């Protein structure tokens, strides 16, 4: 019990020669390993680069896919399209989180009273996980406006977004459900034993723990949504991909697609790094140590 042991004076400690020798060895090994890793990576990249550049078709490929002038001239249009992707993604993501969390909670309800709700939740998840996203986009994108429902817009952007939300929520609901069920039942018992209601236990005990565990898979789905938001281009929505397509059609130079690809990566990569940091900071981890 550390809290009952008087702290030893800190100044007294000097690393022993054994410890100094160990530290020195670890330091040298770290430097050597880093040097080997850097060297082999550089070699590999160099080899791949060399092979590509020295290939017979390289000059033509460089002209059609990596034309600097074309990149510069198409950049504003593609960037403008990307802005639409970003907005679609943000709005859809918020709706997806709300819908999927609701479905996940409904699917974890117990007791016969909740049976119809559970059935509905299960049916929804089964159907929308089974349907290819592109099919849902076509069905809703062309069928939705045809319904001319009162109060609902008929724009392809709206229906394309609705297709993304419905399709993705089915997947994300399963992620949430796995997270909820991964919280040990004893945590629920502890919450209830304090007098918290079912809902309070869910809200204050189970969901905060589940949430932390599902952040990495959720992030994965968010990155995936970012790419798939480009699929609504098939409905004629002018997003980054559609813009790139239009630019390409001018002179059959495919550089705008590469520009769009680079821009998509510029969005997703920082986000992935950010999540890693968040998960590490918020995560509680047992005595992992250096292992």
């Amino acid at each position, binding site marked *: *019990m*550390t*809290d009952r042991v008087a702290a030893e004076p800190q100044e007294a400690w000097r690393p022993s020669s054994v410890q100094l020798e160990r530290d020195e060895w670890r330091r040298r090994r770290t430097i050597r390993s880093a040097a080997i890793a850097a060297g082999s990576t550089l070699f590999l990249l160099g080899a791949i680069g060399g092979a590509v550049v020295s290939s017979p078709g390289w000059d033509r490929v460089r002209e059609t896919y990596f034309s600097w002038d074309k990149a510069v001239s198409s950049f504003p249009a593609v960037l403008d399209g990307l802005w639409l992707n970003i907005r679609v993604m943000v709005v859809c993501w918020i709706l997806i989180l709300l819908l999927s969390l609701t479905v996940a909670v409904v699917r974890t309800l117990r007791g016969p009273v909740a049976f119809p709700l559970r059935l509905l939740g299960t049916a929804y998840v089964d159907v929308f996980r089974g349907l290819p996203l592109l099919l849902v986009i076509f069905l809703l994108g062309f069928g939705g406006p045809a319904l001319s429902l009162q109060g609902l817009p008929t724009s392809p952007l709206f229906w394309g977004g609705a297709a993304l939300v419905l399709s993705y929520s089915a997947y994300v609901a399963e992620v949430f459900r796995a997270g909820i069920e991964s919280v040990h039942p*004893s*945590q629920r*018992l*502890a*919450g*209830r*034993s*304090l*007098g*918290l*209601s079912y*809902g*309070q236990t869910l809200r*204050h*005990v189970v969901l*905060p*723990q589940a949430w*932390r565990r599902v952040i990495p898979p959720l992030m994965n789905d968010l990155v995936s949504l970012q790419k798939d938001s480009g699929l609504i281009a098939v409905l004629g929505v002018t997003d980054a991909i559609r813009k790139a397509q239009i630019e390409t059609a001018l002179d059959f130079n495919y550089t705008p697609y590469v520009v769009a690809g680079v821009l998509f990566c510029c969005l997703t990569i920082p986000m992935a790094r950010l999540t890693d940091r968040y998960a590490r900071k918020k995560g*509680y*981890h*047992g005595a992992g140590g250096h292992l």
Partner: protein
Amino acid sequence: MSTPRHSPPPLRSPEQRRGDPATSELLSLKSVRKCFGDNVVLRDVDLTVEPGQCVVLIGASGSGKSTLLRCVNLLEVVDDGVITFDGRDITDPRVDGDDVRSRMGMVFQAYNLFPHLDVIGNVTLALRLVHDVPADEARARGLAMLERVGLAEKAKARPDDLSGGQQQRVAIARALVANPRLMLLDEVTSALDPELVGEVLDLLTELKGEGVTMLLNTHEMGFARDVADRVCFLHDGHIHEQGSPEQVLGDPQQERTRTFLSRIRAS
């Protein structure tokens, strides 16, 4: 869920807490039965706990001690029998279980602290959510309770960063902070070294002095002898013998009790 179920129980003096001797028992179990599938875990359990008393359950591993405490806390639904608490039949399905549980404090065998909350968050959660205590008052009461179990300086720590004995004491503080009418303690001494067993014993003795009623189970016979007003020996889900610690532990009447005790002493 949104409306306050009741105001926080006022602090009572020991005399008041012990209640009117005429309406004696605080908790009573009559012919309680509990099964998990075909496994009959509790059968015909009769037990009473009077206000201010400390009743200790002993028995081999798997004899149903934890299950009995969970049934009293309404975390399990009994299959037969009646449990009355504070003069009310709490096995009646119309009873608000959350309200009953909010008036009991439960310490789990594995502590079950909330890993996503810090220590003070664990201790004050029920005060804030169930007893509608304002945040700053809840904090003050939580800190006072941590002070009492000797962990005030760990208020900001995460449960995972505490030693087993420290987690144990946080769990006791969490259960105690809302002034429960009855404390249920499942193996409070299982994770502790002998010195800490003594500390928890002191704490429980102190609580007893304040009139806190306790139902607990333990494998520590010395602990049982020191703290118990009554000892109940549970075997295969049935209470085979109960009485004063001197009688049950010192001069057991039943063959089973003698066997159990001699095995424990031998180990």
